[in-house]
């Protein structure tokens, strides 16, 4: 028997539950209670594409150091689902703990002798107090939270306050929940003293950070960014972006005087219709977006080509999930990069933004509307299920009240009357962006015909090769202009000089931060570049060319970002070593460390020989 794991403010708790049993809100409250103790947590839902009855897991990483990626491994398994018992028991690290409902006997062969078992007859306790089956189920969750809190040393007041806040509008529920909490707490105090070596102690590691999920942040970012039109079609994991937008609009965008809405949301009949409406609204001067996931982006391809070629501003929030086809709808990946970058037939290129967490997603979602109107083209906000559907601890959202929306180049009736020459696709400023007019602007000037068929710079239909090519060349130049407008990469130089670099992006960031710190401890130094947008600026190719070896960390099988970098930066593919995590779970620091450390020590050994 290995020594029981002992750790303060640094461990992983995993809850194994049945979908639809009400465990999610109880588990989230558990995570929040640790945050309220001032200790950072990272929580992740691992859930099935199902509403009721299938296994679901909730992982809470407690990290006094503030590491917010998945660590990998489990120190305390709260095994509440008999269906997944064997797998759950097997996943506990040696010396870890297994907490389970001991009301029904489980044969000794079903346990391991290298882990510590904490038994609590939850069903018995519950059935003795509650007769209603739904109550038995819901309060069972609260009872085990009460017990865990006692075992780990979470202050009872903290949980009681959280319950009070949660049921502020239903005060009748507060007392029974408090009672359930106390039942769990008291049982653990009386029967499980000293059973668990994992502890939470008060700290000051959370500061003013907030705990929020990315889709909520994206919806709020769209409100702040001035979106008035949203059209969408339900698809996991993006549905909650549209729902969040609607929720925030109801709160912030209803005219108090008239009760009328300063927004319009349509749940379309499919993704094709959703993007069609967004394009129509963008053409007509409203800030408009859709939110979808990979299969939706596949369906939107034809329209994306139209928006690119006819140069219509729009924003698409892609919450990436596991592909291809239906793939893993409830698992995370970064596997839509090629699909989005070159979406649609013919020669196209699209702007993509890669937020690292909900805070950056809030910013990028708002900024995407400025970019869309400035560049008159679709902007992809490439988040993923990990950011979108999990609560992340991140810096509070910030806004500058003096900030003005960049509505891009729009000619007004006054401009037209003043005699300004209007040609929809004329490059008058040398940045390859033309001026547009909005429908209804002027009785006799500035009307033009928008089309996806080939057109000349005056927006006239043409089949002349030269006139067509002139437009296509300008679109390439416009993509160059985009490089200076999109968020710049974040570059960090290692403490010591090194020929190794690492490039990563999106939700990989927290696991990467942790991995880099650990590698540094081992004396392995790497310069880092976090990509925040496509197209890549010169800083990206400079970084690549400045290193002999670049580790490129991605969450897909085919190293899609590598394809983009090789293709767009004209760099030598041999410089890249791909580190790929694509099993559908968020990448872990342990995985990155093992991959990078393995390669770096191997190469230095080779060099020594």
């Amino acid at each position, binding site marked *: 028997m290995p020594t029981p794991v002992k750790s303060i403010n640094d461990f992983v708790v995993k809850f194994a539950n049945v979908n639809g049993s009400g465990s999610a809100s109880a588990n989230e409250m558990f995570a929040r209670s640790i945050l309220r103790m001032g200790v950072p947590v990272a929580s992740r839902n691992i859930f099935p594409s199902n509403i009721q009855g299938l296994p679901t897991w909730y992982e809470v990483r407690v990290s006094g150091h503030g590491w917010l990626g998945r660590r990998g491994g489990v120190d305390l398994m709260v095994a509440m689902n008999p269906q997944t018992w064997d797998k759950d028991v097997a996943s506990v690290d040696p010396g870890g703990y297994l907490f389970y409902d001991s009301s029904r006997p489980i044969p000794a062969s079903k346990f391991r002798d290298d882990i510590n078992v904490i038994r609590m007859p939850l069903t018995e306790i519950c059935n003795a107090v509650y007769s209603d089956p739904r109550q038995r189920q819901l309060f069972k969750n609260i009872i085990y939270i009460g017990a865990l809190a006692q075992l780990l040393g979470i202050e009872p007041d903290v949980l009681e306050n959280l319950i009070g806040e949660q049921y502020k509008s239903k005060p009748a529920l507060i007392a029974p929940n408090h009672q359930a909490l106390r039942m769990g707490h008291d049982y653990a105090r009386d029967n499980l003293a000293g059973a668990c070596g994992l502890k939470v102690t008060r700290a000051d590691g959370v500061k003013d950070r907030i705990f929020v999920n990315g889709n909520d942040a994206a919806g709020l970012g769209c409100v702040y960014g001035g979106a008035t039109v949203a*059209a969408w079609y339900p698809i996991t994991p993006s549905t909650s972006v549209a729902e969040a937008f609607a929720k925030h609009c109801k709160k912030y965008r209803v005219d108090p005087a008239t009760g009328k*809405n*300063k927004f319009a949301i349509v749940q379309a009949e*499919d993704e094709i219709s959703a993007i069609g409406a967004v394009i*129509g609204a963008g053409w007509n001067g409203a800030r408009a977006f859709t939110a979808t996931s990979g299969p939706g982006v596949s369906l939107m391809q034809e329209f994306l080509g139209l928006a690119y070629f006819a140069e219509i501003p729009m924003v698409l929030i892609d919450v990436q999930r596991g592909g291809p086809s239906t793939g893993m709808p409830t698992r995370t990946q970064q596997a839509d990069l090629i699909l989005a970058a070159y979406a649609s037939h013919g020669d196209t290129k699209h702007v993509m933004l890669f937020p690292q967490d909900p805070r950056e997603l809030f910013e990028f979602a708002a900024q995407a509307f400025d970019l869309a109107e400035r560049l008159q083209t679709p902007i992809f906000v490439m988040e993923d299920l990990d950011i979108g559907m999990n609560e992340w601890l991140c810096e509070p*959202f910030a806004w500058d009240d003096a900030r003005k929306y960049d509505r891009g180049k729009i000619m007004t009736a006054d401009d037209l009357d003043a005699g300004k020459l209007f040609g929809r696709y004329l490059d008058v400023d040398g940045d390859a962006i033309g001026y547009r007019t909005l429908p209804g602007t002027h009785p006799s000037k500035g009307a033009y*015909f928008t089309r996806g068929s080939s057109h000349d710079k005056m927006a006239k239909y043409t089949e002349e090769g030269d006139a067509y090519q002139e437009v296509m060349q300008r679109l390439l130049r416009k993509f160059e202009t985009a490089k200076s407008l999109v968020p710049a990469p974040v570059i960090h130089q290692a403490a010591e000089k090194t020929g190794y670099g690492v490039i990563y992006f999106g939700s990989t960031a927290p696991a990467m931060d942790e991995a880099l710190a650990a590698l540094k401890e081992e004396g392995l130094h790497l310069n880092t570049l976090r990509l925040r947008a496509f197209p890549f600026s010169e800083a990206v190719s400079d970084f690549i060319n400045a290193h002999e070896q670049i580790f490129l960390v991605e969450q897909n099988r085919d190293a899609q970002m590598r394809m983009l970098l090789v293709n767009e930066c004209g760099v030598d593919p041999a410089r890249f070593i791909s580190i790929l995590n694509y099993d559908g779970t968020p990448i872990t620091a342990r995985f990155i460390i093992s991959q990078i450390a393995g390669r770096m020590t191997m190469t230095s050994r080779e060099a020594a020989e």
Partner: protein
Amino acid sequence: MTYIVKPKLRHPALPVNKLGFTHRDYEGTVSTLCAGCGHDSISAAIIQACFELAIEPHRVAKLSGIGCSSKTPTYFLGQSHGFNSVHGRMPSVLTGANMANKDLIYLGVSGDGDSASIGLGQFVHCIRRGVNMVYICENNGVYGLTKGQFSATADKGSKSKGGASNMDTPLDLASMAMMVGASFVGRSFSGDKEQMVPLIMAAMRHPGPCFIDIVSPCVAFNNHAGSTKAYDFVRAHNEAVNRLDIMEPRDPITVEYAPGTTEEVALHDGSSLRLAKLDADYDPSDRIMAMAYLQAKAARNELVTGLIYMDRHATDMHANLNTVDVPLNGLSEKDLCPGTKALDAFNASHR
């Protein structure tokens, strides 16, 4: 619509409407469709309707999909913004445009290939969403630009130019429009300008989803004996249920009708619609009856034309969405951005 390039000079005696615009101000570029194409007659009817209604051309947004019919928006209303979108998807683009600015008049032009096949889903959903628009389907029963394949509105037994018979059941877009909530449904024939113009005018004044199915023969691929969308066939089987007249508030009544054969319908802008009933029993405010009537006539190979259905109490998508009275595309940061105070409160509630 114009067949020939006209000189820019205008004759001082050209009639003008109450805005001072001549007919020419509502025209577009020269049509590139085949000589005799029914679609050109429809473009002419749209021009006439807008001229008579004295609509400011730039207050119309004209949108279309792909196909011969969808090319036509370049042939009328040259001072309007136009949008030739992708095949079968005009309805969604129009929906979004309308969401952005409720103050323009939205004219959607489509064909039977565009609306009844690839775009059937969008056709239905745009109407059931109540988008305030005039949706015209220029219906010729064939794919013209790809040279004569049957479309989904081709009648069973109708013959192609090459002699093949269509064995599939036709879709009747007018019936479908009524079923899914269009508050104004008309049907006409491109060879009958007198019927088309007032129908389009009435639709443009109607504040809800309007659909007009206009049978428009394809002279190149579907105007032969054995086709049920040929000029001769449609003329022989046209069963008009009523004739329309749009009357401005002070228009004198110049035509006498036998008592009981006309009905006046007030429109939202103060003008009215006078229906001359050709079938005394036909009541265009009765949706259920209208749907049954269409089916009964279709079973006898008769094409019902005229104002088929109108809901006098129509509303639109913006009423359902409860949007503010001003167009959404005109709102600024001040209206749209909740600001730092609200954000601070959001942050506080997530700790």
